[in-house]
């Protein structure tokens, strides 16, 4: 990708915000386009600047990172949100994903990991642990979502549906490419199409959305299990 990844940073601690900026500023393929000091600012700046990625602390005054995420997903669905959190237990993470986060990192994560996570999200890779994906699927199955959303299903091509199912396994783009005998470029293109059609900005969101719309079923997961074996 020739254009730089445009990043907005939201954290209520000025020093930490500064430290975050420094992490990204040394990367040649990224640029910081703004800094927000609370949830409200984060929402306002996102709707105005439309960044590719919003790196946001979850604990913030005004509204917290979760509430901000929900609002941002309504006004700027193409901005992927990377949440920085103090907790990473499963229920917490599921909550983050429900709110529309593309991924999460521990606040204590190293700068290098942070940069990698931003890149992964941007290129449509999975940033979730397979264990979390499994949990997400299980939870979705407990809550019946009703009949599948026909409109959404019709919108996606057979190939895209196939990829959506593989996506639920946590396979990387490369693995998917190998499995389907496609080039990595093609897979990325498909991913990008899927995201556009579903009006999301990341893999995690595509997964959450497809579970919400009933595009993936328990059978799909079983299928995946057999693939995994």
């Amino acid at each position: 990708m020739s254009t730089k990844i445009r990043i907005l940073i939201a954290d209520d601690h000025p020093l930490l915000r500064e430290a975050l900026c420094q992490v990204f500023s040394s990367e040649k393929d990224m640029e910081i386009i703004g800094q927000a000091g609370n949830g409200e600012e984060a929402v306002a700046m996102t709707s105005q600047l439309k960044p590719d990625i919003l790196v946001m602390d979850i604990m913030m005054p005004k509204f917290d990172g979760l509430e901000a995420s929900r609002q941002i997903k309504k006004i700027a669905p193409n901005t992927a949100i990377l949440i920085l959190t103090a907790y990473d237990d499963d229920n917490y993470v599921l909550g983050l994903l429900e709110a529309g986060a593309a991924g999460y990192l521990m606040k204590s994560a190293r700068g290098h990991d942070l940069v990698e996570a931003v890149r992964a999200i941007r290129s449509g890779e999975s940033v979730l642990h397979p264990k979390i994906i499994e949990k997400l699927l299980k939870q979705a199955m407990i809550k019946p979502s009703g009949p599948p959303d026909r409109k959404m299903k019709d919108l996606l091509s057979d190939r895209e549906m196939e990829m959506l199912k593989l996506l639920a396994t946590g396979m990387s783009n490369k693995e998917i490419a190998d499995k389907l005998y496609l080039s990595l470029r093609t897979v990325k293109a498909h991913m990008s199409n899927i995201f556009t059609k579903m009006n999301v900005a990341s893999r995690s969101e595509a997964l959450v959305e497809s579970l919400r719309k009933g595009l993936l079923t328990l059978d799909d997961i079983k299928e995946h299990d057999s693939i995994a074996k």
Partner: protein
Amino acid sequence: MSNRWRIFHICALVLIFIILSAFLYDKLLAGLPIIGQLTTLSSLGTLGYRIVRFAYILLIVYASWMIGVKSGIATLIASALAMLPQAIFLSSDPVDSVIGSLAALAIGGLGIALIQLRRGWRRQRQKLRGISVALRTSQESYEELFTNASDAIWVHDLAGKIVIANNACEKVSGYLPEELIGKSVAQLMSREALVIAREVRTKLMKGQAIDQRYDQRIIKKDGTEAVVELFTRLIRSDGKPIGFQNIARDVTEERRLRDNLRLQIHNTLMAQEEERKRIARELHDDIAQSILLLSRELDMLISQSDSKIPEDSILELEHIESIANNAYKSLQRYARDLRPSILDQMGLLAALNWLTEELGKELKIQVLVKSDNLPALPSELELAMFRIAQEALNNIRKHAHASNVNISLKIMSNNLRMSITDDGKGFSTSKLTGDLVKQGKLGVLGMEERARLIGGSLQIKSAPGKGTTVIARAPIWTRQKELVSFI
């Protein structure tokens, strides 16, 4: 009559009978020495026999009077057996004698009947007198009970006028019983109390019984308010309602103590939440962020590509960084235990899931959370329910030895119902009554109080060996003024 007297009378009876009979048969006995001389009536002629017959009458009356109706009849028969042969066979004028004898017997029989009649009448009178005595005694003891009962008792008619009141009424109302009689009960009641009184009245008049005592506030003579526990009953006469009987006990002090205790628990809970929140925030906002910053700076120092730091020192720095990160993590964990941010951020269900997973991991038991689709809930409700669950799970951890725990959240007509069931060893719920404070069971009181503060209720069901179920219910939409904010 004593037995000895009875024998004496029987002896006398027999003796007199023999003597009379001897006079009657004087002509047959005339040949005998001495007795013949003594028993002759010849000088008196027929008059002598009449006297004897008359004496028989007296004898019959005597027997039935002194000994009894049976001996009277026996004497009557014996007299007939004695008189009739003499009258028929020995008398000079049999017709006159037979008539005389029969007349004597008839009079004797009449005597028996009269005596018997009198006896029955007397017995009746005695019985009546006994009843009236018993009646008076029981009435007295009832009056005594009523007057000196420790509970205030009064009766008022349908119009509310007090008809009768006992001494204890003075303790409760400050009015003497005499002052109360004729007064209207409405004068003793505040407006709120009147509303309750009307409800009770309507219910009772409809024929519904009120089995339970209810709390009522009355205004005393000195203007102060007393809380009484009241039991009211409809009094009927011939099926028609005529008034209300009230039994009241002054529970002002009890209620005051209870309210005090509640207030104290309430304040403690609030202070606790406040304090926890403050500490958690401080830990998180201040210390944690500083440590985080330290870690970030170290990270940057290490990852600078043009670093002049020697390799050995980088390893050292990485070690320091990991120490900082661990400190950060444990700080966050600590802050979360104080105030679960997951609850504030993701709601009750996520927080309960988190809580149960922790417990499940710790005790290696199965903990399941089932829930209806929950609407957005007020944060007070969520916090209260979360803390109740936390306490219940704490008890399970400490006491239950359960292998399965189920939490269910249900929405039932504007109420949130949370039940926490375990299959542990359970306990006897009778232990939950009495002085919980003394027994150190503040946890249960705390749960109850939390439920009460959000306008809800708490119920604990358990029996030894049967597991325990804690059910908390609370309205989802609480009226604003009733909300006591923890936040």
